[in-house]
């Protein structure tokens, strides 16, 4: 049976962060403030989302679910490109287009085709939000890594790209190895986790289901579905954002618009 936690239990766990604090002080890492801030944010953000979900699960209204989905997707799209080192023209819009189309498509396929509408129509919120969240979290990573790599490759390979163009190559011939490397890089984390899943750690969804008392075989089935939809979402999102960005820096005249890729200004972090 599922064991609920008291607030005291949670406080006890929170005190474990003191170990990190002690290490930081002992080794003069200077991370105490950041740790405290991160711990506070973890508590506040999760508590808030707990209350929000509590309410959404109670009302089970489609407009509310979709609105939350839009907010989640937008946050994912903006943070996916928020920390990449090179700025491409219209990068945020490209990210929004890619995240929306990939995450919503695979989530819809999962819910309507794999699980089936019969199975979840009474409790849509319990299904839509966690599935969408899982796909978004991973797509976001793929896009971040892919865009970082694309910018790096295009900047570093300028000579080679212009050489291919100057010999009569098309923009695709000039840009394809950068595009390929970027997509490959974006997909590495999910490929790695598919290789070790179950061997190194039990993934979150499966752990959650086991804690909630589900049979391991049932939990595994869900986890397999999750791994594949995450992989599909990441692949689609990464390919989409990389190709859209490629299109912004190579025009129809097969010219490489190198100057359009801007190095991000070095913002000092406090």
């Amino acid at each position, binding site marked *: 049976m599922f064991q609920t936690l008291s607030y005291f239990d949670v406080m006890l766990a929170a005190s474990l962060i003191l170990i990190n604090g002690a290490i930081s002080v002992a080794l003069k890492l200077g991370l105490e403030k950041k740790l405290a801030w991160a711990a506070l944010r973890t508590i506040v953000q999760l508590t808030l989302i707990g209350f929000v979900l509590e309410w959404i699960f109670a009302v089970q209204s489609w407009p509310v679910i979709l609105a939350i989905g839009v907010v989640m997707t937008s946050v994912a799209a903006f943070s996916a490109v928020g920390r990449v080192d090179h700025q491409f023209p219209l990068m945020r819009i490209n990210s929004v287009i890619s995240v929306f189309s990939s995450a919503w498509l695979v989530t819809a396929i999962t819910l309507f085709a794999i699980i089936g509408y019969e199975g979840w129509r009474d409790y849509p919120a319990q299904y839509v939000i966690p599935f969408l969240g899982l796909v978004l979290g991973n797509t976001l990573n793929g896009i971040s890594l892919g865009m970082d790599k694309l910018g790096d490759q295009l900047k570093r390979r300028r*000579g*080679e790209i*212009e*050489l*291919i*163009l*100057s*010999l*009569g*190559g*098309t923009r695709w*011939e000039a840009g394809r190895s950068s595009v390929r490397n970027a997509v490959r890089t974006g997909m590495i984390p999910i490929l790695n986790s598919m290789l070790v899943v179950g061997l190194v750690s039990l993934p979150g969804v499966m752990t959650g289901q086991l804690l909630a008392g589900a049979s391991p075989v049932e939990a595994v089935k869900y986890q397999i579905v999750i791994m594949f939809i995450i992989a599909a979402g990441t692949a689609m999102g990464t390919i989409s954002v990389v190709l859209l960005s490629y299109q912004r820096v190579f*025009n*129809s*005249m*097969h*010219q*490489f*618009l190198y*100057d359009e890729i801007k190095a991000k200004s070095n913002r000092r972090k406090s």
Partner: protein
Amino acid sequence: MAINVPLLEVRQLTRKSHDGSLLLEDINLKVEVGERWVISGASGSGKTLLLRSLAMLDPAEVVLEWNGEPVGAHNVTLYRACVIYLAQSAAIIDGDVRENLRLPLSLTMHRDLKWPETEVSDWCHRFGKEVDFLNRDAHDLSGGEKQIVALIRALIICPQILLLDEATSALDPKSVKVYEQIVEEWLQEDPNHRATIWVSHSEDQRGRVSDHTVNLSAGKIEGSEP
């Protein structure tokens, strides 16, 4: 090709920087077959930009006609396969010299071209490079050797116009002579379809490789001769 149509005609070429200032202003140029041009001017006068614009490598406002045909999105790759820009710091790809020379043959544009083994070894030999040169890692080449590779790579695809941007700047005087000779022979092989445009800071070289000069100053043509 119709009679009296220039090989290359550039009208009203204007290039602006990001802040809107003019880098090249109202450049007009007509290159006939068999002509040997040189663009002269001080550093920063826009010579490289002009050559790159002639190769259509950067966005610019320009009307460019090649054999009487306007160059646009539909034929720009074919145009660039025939009007080749050779940069001062010759670009190379990862791999050995042979892979670098074979690069054009990997492009759709040149897929029907055959690897000209005899010509390649002849060109290499004239630069004093023997067969093992082709097996050297391209990243280990000197600046001058990269310029040699760039020239041979361009000649392999039988271009019509060579845009030579300080293309011999890293070569020793003897290799410079060989380079100029090879370019001249290439031009004379088919003077009814070919032309050269050089950018060079060496007055001697300008005298040797050109019979038409454009003087560029602050992005504008100050005069041309003859």
